[in-house]
């Protein structure tokens, strides 16, 4: 069971937090601050969920005060009007909130950027007005009084200190669940879709489902916080759940540093207590509040806590300067001299025989047009299992479109695509990934917000199974799978000579390294078929030869390769079959030798006939 450095840091953080939670009330002179601490605890529960949604999944919601309110009102109404047990009411409130969040989230999370912000804000406004207007049920603008306190048997949570114990136990559990999720397979998937939704989809991360699930989960956090709030204050008022509170909640996430649960805790503590700290300033309170907020965001945009931690890290490891591995070293490594030194054609010829007659991928008569332009028309070709098949053609011939059609990024207008005897057109990329296909991208799609190793681990998303629930609770089965994926990922990295870079942020890699990272990410799932979209574009001759050798090695591991490439030397030396496209139609198909002599191909490339 390997916990890893981040795990150790988290455990240490949790231990410090636990000690602090226990000591805080003892060190307190003024009971008023206990009340503030309780509100901080309640806000923290919401902020943990929101941090996962905003910082990890990258979906900004200005509607979470509504979920907080729905939780509070459902608890209040169920206990007072219908006499439910408060704990049962808390669970039912969470169920009601999650249903609403699911219904709202499904269409809303299709939106991006400002549209998403507006839609969640609109939802919050509507929810708030409905709460105010349904006064026969909710008590209307004057609020809902008389909510009973929570109790376990005869132990009633009826004082600030008792509620402190309850609220902070719940907040602590919330933080643990949040930390667990953030470090898990799901957490990686969320950060990947934050960085590039389509690319994450192609790695097997069901992006839209994950966004909705994360939205619902964060709404449940808010709902539980709302129920606690209702029972704590025994009174709920619609003003507590207006859009301005939503804005404040997101501000807490951002001030704390998006993408850090600890930052969220800080943000909630800081912004909840700030008005109380400034209360002596009376009417100047707002001015200072706004001023402090602006200053923090200007000077520590990565968040207060991560900002400080980063500085600490910086001083701790002066040697943190990266030893950048040069390509020469890479080529000199023992694993690669078999490739780099020898002319390609020789090293390949023996392998050609491996291709069998089984068809792994069949493209039958597919057409796709964008507006009036036919990017692919009546394309038909097969890819033999165990082969390296190349797709070539001049710029704009429809090569990448074909790759995207195969991978489900685009839906063909006509025709069928058969992969391992299943029709796959109409499926989503993440489903196709799960069937044993993987790909790289013409325009690099590195997840630049996570480490090199994590990038590769996202590549294994399609072959692993730890979902939200397991990822929050970390049972032994979780660790088993996590260990397996980590090992596979490290193996894939060393296959591409990147094992020393494993813990670096992926954005720090050079262009050539990022290209190899993409290929490592694609092979980690041990796919049946890999689609490589221009793997050597932009690389120099030596690098190209290395990559060509690695492509051969991928094939010898049992993976069929469909290659799109402009570098004709690479294509001709490693391919078993070459398919030539021009203006979206296939103009030739055959062995490299046949293609080199084909007049149609020559005229397409050189213009005119020879």
């Amino acid at each position: 069971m390997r916990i890893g450095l981040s795990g150790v840091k988290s455990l240490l953080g949790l231990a410090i937090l636990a000690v602090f939670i226990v000591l805080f009330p003892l060190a307190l002179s003024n009971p008023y601050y206990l009340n503030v601490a309780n509100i901080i605890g309640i806000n923290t529960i919401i902020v943990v969920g929101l941090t996962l949604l905003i910082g990890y999944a990258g979906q900004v919601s200005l509607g979470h005060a509504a979920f907080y309110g729905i939780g509070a009102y459902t608890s209040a109404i169920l206990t007072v009007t219908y006499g439910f047990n408060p704990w049962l009411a808390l669970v039912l409130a969470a169920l009601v909130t999650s249903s609403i969040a699911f219904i709202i989230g499904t269409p809303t999370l299709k939106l991006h950027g400002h549209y998403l912000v507006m839609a969640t804000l609109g939802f919050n406004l509507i929810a708030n007005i409905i709460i105010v207007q349904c006064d026969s049920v909710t008590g209307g603008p004057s609020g809902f009084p008389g909510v009973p306190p929570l109790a376990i048997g005869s132990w009633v949570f009826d004082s600030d200190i008792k509620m402190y114990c309850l609220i902070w136990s719940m907040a602590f559990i919330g933080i643990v669940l949040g930390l667990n999720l953030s470090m898990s397979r799901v957490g990686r998937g969320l950060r990947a879709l934050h960085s590039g939704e389509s690319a994450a989809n192609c790695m097997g991360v069901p992006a839209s489902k994950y966004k909705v699930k994360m939205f619902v989960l964060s709404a449940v956090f808010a709902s539980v916080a709302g129920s606690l709030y209702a029972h704590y204050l025994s009174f709920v008022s619609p003003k507590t759940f207006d859009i301005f509170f939503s804005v404040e909640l997101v501000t807490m996430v951002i001030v704390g540093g998006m993408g850090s649960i600890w930052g969220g805790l800080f943000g909630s503590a800081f912004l909840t207590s700030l008005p109380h700290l400034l209360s002596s300033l009376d009417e100047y309170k707002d001015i200072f509040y706004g001023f402090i907020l602006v200053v923090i965001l200007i000077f520590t945009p990565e968040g207060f806590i991560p900002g400080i931690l980063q500085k600490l890290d910086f001083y701790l490891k002066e040697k943190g300067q990266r030893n950048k591995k040069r390509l020469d070293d890479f080529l000199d490594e023992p694993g690669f001299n078999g490739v780099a030194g020898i002319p390609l054609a020789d090293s390949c010829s023996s392998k050609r025989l491996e291709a069998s007659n089984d068809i792994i991928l069949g493209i039958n008569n597919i057409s796709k047009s964008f507006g009036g332009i036919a990017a692919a028309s009546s394309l038909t070709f097969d890819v033999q299992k165990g082969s390296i098949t190349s797709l070539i053609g001049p710029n704009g011939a429809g090569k990448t479109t074909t790759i995207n059609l195969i991978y489900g990024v685009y839906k063909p207008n006509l025709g069928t695509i058969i992969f391992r005897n299943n029709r796959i057109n109409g499926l989503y990329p993440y489903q196709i990934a799960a069937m044993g296909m993987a790909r790289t991208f013409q325009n690099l799609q590195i997840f630049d917000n996570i480490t090199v190793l994590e990038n590769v681990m996202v590549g294994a998303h399609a072959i692993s199974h730890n979902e939200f629930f397991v990822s929050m609770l970390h049972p032994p089965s979780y660790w088993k799978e996590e260990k397996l994926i980590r090992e596979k990922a490290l193996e894939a990295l060393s296959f591409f000579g990147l094992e020393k870079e494993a813990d670096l942020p992926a954005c720090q890699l050079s262009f050539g390294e990022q290209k190899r990272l993409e290929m490592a990410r694609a092979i980690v799932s041990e796919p049946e078929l890999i689609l490589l979209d221009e793997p050597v574009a932009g690389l120099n001759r030596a690098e190209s030869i290395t990559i060509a050798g690695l492509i051969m090695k991928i094939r010898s591991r049992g993976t069929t390769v469909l290659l799109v490439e402009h570098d004709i030397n690479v294509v001709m030396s490693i391919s078993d079959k070459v398919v030539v496209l021009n203006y979206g139609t296939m103009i030739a198909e055959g062995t490299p030798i046949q293609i080199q002599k084909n007049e149609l191909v020559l005229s397409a490339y050189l213009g005119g006939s020879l």
Partner: protein
Amino acid sequence: MDHLAQFIVAGLTTGSIYALIALGFCVIHNATGIVNFAQGDFISLGGLVIFTLLMGLKVPLIIAFPISVIAVTIVGALLERVAIRPARSRSIVILVFITIGASIFMRGVFKILWGKNQMGLPPFSGETPINFAGATLMPQNLWIFGITLISVIGLHFFFSRTRLGKAMRATACNPRAASLMGVNVNSMVLLSFALSGALGAIAGIIIVPITTLSFDIGVMLGLKGFAAAVLGGYGNSLGAVLGGLLLGVLESVGAGVISSTYKDVIAFGILLLVLFIKPSGLLGRGDTERL
């Protein structure tokens, strides 16, 4: 149904204001990609300054109007210089929340300078109603329509015909490329804040006579303007005008025909429906991720 024409006139009036506010959002968005949540406070400030000039200092309208606009323009530019430009991060979310902080700050200042009381201004030119196509128009409605129309045409001319306007559009498209072509991107961003300050001020000045003025009048108006901009397709000027007018009319007709307490529910409900059907607004073009 008799009142329908009246509701539409009322809706077009508030809709014009929303359109102006939405344009303010678009101008800043197009130069920086951010949503400026202090836009609402530009509106408040415009109204508050002209109130002081007209009622306190007895300055004639013809002079007070431009002074107010210039004052808010300067505040807009100041916001960019002191809060946006020094920001260590270019992340959109951070910049957006800087404007939220700035908005809280500005509202705090307004509250101290002008107090929490409700204030009022008389219409620009009397209160003699005019009958037009079954609806009663107040002169202030005409002022609002006219000034909005002039602003929209002026803005269109600026962006399509002037060198500066074209440079701003280039900055919107690709700031780095624009800067390599010799456009001073910093000045363009500054200009966009100034311009949107001016638009906010105009909206604030013309709406005050038909509503009550308070230090936070702009908050809800700003949100409506944001909604209008999103409805039309964020960043699209024509969309902003269309979205503003549509939102105004929907709200007014919804309030008149169904219920005034639910007018925001109707307006925002329709906004949500439009977005669910067309995720990039009425005239917006969706971003496509290229693989």
